[in-house]
């Protein structure tokens, strides 16, 4: 009986690429490499006030590489009120908002705020990671996900890598216990720290993150976040489950095509 090769049907998402946006060549190479590695959706960290030209240039680059661009903002507030202020100003301008929690107070505020999509913690120092049981409980209630960048693990060595792996192992158990979703991303700042999804899934096994969960953390979890936020950012959105449909025919005629996530590879 002839054996057929199983095709990869997963839509892989790298929710955080951090190219130097002023370096167009590097940005272009990183987006192309992401596509070659198998990613269909790529999140790129943008500055607080990106010009429309910057975003359009990125969209063009992504379009050329057949990759879907997710605009993302990384906030790193030092005080909780600074976080609230930034969320009020920028929530409706970006598809994904991640908060780098530098202090415990910021971490708690971010975890209970439904406008925050992703909680990020330092990958360089395990003492600066505040994802404990209390944080997980708040994040679980607000449906906020925990983001883990894997590229920094490549550059760490010795004791510091051991400490961070130990901490991540603890956090994965806590997240599972409280039903907090985990999103894995590369956080790559250059071409050398980019890896394929299967390589990152293998790296995630270093902190005992099960393969199936790691696959979801690179596909379904980020897709769900992006999908929800795109729906919320659409003009017709009112509240979860409620959309404006009055004057639909006129709007359909006027509207630019609505953005949808790419279908899984092999399904076309």
């Amino acid at each position: 009986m002839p054996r057929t090769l199983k095709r990869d049907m997963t839509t892989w998402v790298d929710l955080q690429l951090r190219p130097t946006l002023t370096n167009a060549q590097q940005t272009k190479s990183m987006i192309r490499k992401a596509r070659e590695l198998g990613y269909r959706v790529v999140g790129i960290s943008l500055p607080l006030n990106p010009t429309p030209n910057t975003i359009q240039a990125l969209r063009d680059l992504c379009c050329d590489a057949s990759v879907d661009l997710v605009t993302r903002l990384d906030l790193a507030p030092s005080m909780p009120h600074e976080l609230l202020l930034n969320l009020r100003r920028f929530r409706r301008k970006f598809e994904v908002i991640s908060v780098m929690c530098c202090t415990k107070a910021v971490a708690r505020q971010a975890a209970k705020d439904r406008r925050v999509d992703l909680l990020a913690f330092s990958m360089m120092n395990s003492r600066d990671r505040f994802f404990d049981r209390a944080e997980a409980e708040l994040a679980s209630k607000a449906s906020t996900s925990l983001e883990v960048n894997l590229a920094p693990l490549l550059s760490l060595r010795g004791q510091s890598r051991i400490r961070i792996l130990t901490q991540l192992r603890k956090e994965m158990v806590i997240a599972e216990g409280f039903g907090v979703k985990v999103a894995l991303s590369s956080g790559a700042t250059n071409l050398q720290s980019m890896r394929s999804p299967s390589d990152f899934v293998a790296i995630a096994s270093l902190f005992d993150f099960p393969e199936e969960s790691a696959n979801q953390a690179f596909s379904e979890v980020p897709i769900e976040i992006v999908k929800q936020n795109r729906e919320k950012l659409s003009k017709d959105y009112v509240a979860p489950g409620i959309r404006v449909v009055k004057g639909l025919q006129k709007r359909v005629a006027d509207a630019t095509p609505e953005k949808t996530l790419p279908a899984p590879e092999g399904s076309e």
Partner: protein
Amino acid sequence: MPRLKRRYLHLKVQSEEPVSRKEITDAIWGTISRLYGEYGASQVNLAIIEYDEHVRYAIVRCKHTALKMVKASTAMITEINGKPAEVQVVKVSGTLKALRRKAVT
């Protein structure tokens, strides 16, 4: 005695400078022992089956239970003999014949 199951991995080495067979072997062994220690490395049964310096493709063999260890270790390689490099797993197979067939397709 139960049959020893093995896995064959097709690796792609990316580096701007030439990488010799010895260097790639040392890099993989070095990363495995750094990540899993000597005890862990002893359970991998790693062997470099072939390496093409020009095309920079390697085929390595390991015990099937240690596949995850080898994949994680190769993904963690950032330099080979001080030269920036990365190693990607292209294909994995249970037999050398199937791996070669997959590599061709």
